[in-house]
């Protein structure tokens, strides 16, 4: 495989990973939203819509590259049981962190346009994660992002 083909393949793989994360977020907000009420439920609804729009954007990008976008699963295994508002907020935080991590994967590709796209695309999930968490972190999207000391 030539370097150019390898670069294109890596870019497509990272886009598919971001799409898979968006699919999971769309599903997860459906679960979280059911456990929230009032302003928090409205917030979850807005975030759910944002992930749908991001999903559609990624699907269009992947189709434009001549590939088939990964499909959403019928159901997703949640990282923990969601039974109340507190666990719903934790799930929303985890979903946003997962999406930010996936977009950060796009930043590692050599295609400069995809790299810039990934960096910009991770700003909204980083902000939403901070909102649900109630605090900021030093390194959003990175495995050590929870810890200010990195």
């Amino acid at each position, binding site marked *: 495989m030539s370097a150019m083909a390898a670069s294109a393949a890596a870019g497509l793989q990272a886009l598919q990973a971001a799409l898979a994360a968006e699919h999971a977020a769309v599903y997860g907000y459906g679960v979280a939203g059911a456990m929230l009420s009032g302003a928090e439920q409205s917030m979850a609804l807005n975030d759910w819509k944002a992930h749908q729009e991001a999903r559609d954007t990624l699907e269009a990008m992947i189709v434009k590259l001549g590939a088939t976008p990964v499909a959403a699963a019928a159901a997703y295994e949640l990282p923990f049981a969601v039974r109340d508002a507190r666990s719903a907020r934790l799930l929303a935080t985890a979903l946003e962190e997962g999406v930010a991590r996936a977009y950060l994967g796009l*930043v590692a590709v*050599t295609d400069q346009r995809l790299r810039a796209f990934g960096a910009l695309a*991770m700003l909204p999930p980083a902000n939403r994660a901070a909102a649900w968490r*109630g605090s900021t*972190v030093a390194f*959003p999207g990175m495995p050590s992002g929870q810890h200010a000391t990195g």
Partner: protein
Amino acid sequence: MLAASATALPLFPLLPALSACAGPDPLAGPAPLSADVRSLLRAVAAEQNLISLYVRTMAVYSALAPALAPLLAEHRAHLARLRAQIVEPPGKAVPGEVTSRPAIPGSREGALARLRAAERAASAAQLRRLAGVSPSLAQLYASIAASEATHVTALSDRGLSDRSPR
């Protein structure tokens, strides 16, 4: 002396081994800095200036200190991670001085607006550094840019009052 991480970049590329082969003259002076190191030095300088702005703002408006301290801690973490990417060769130190000391505005609201503007500018600058650097460094810049973007929101009046960034 800074601790060097496993992936740290030398401030100056290693000189080629001496041999009879034709190539760069190792006695001709230090080789030019790599793109990664040049951008890292700028990022370190910018981070130091931002930290200075936080410290001076907290000194003037002590009531803001509890809300600003977590953000300052994250900037110190950014600086440590950035500096850890660079190996200092003997006799050459990564610049450590603050190069920009804008006046702290005379009102609390003005000071917060100054911090928000500084965070916004810092985030945009990190994003401009992405092109042409290594993948791992690009990810570090992107992550710091995202952190700084969340700081802009956290620095809104609402964010400061309840620590909820939006």
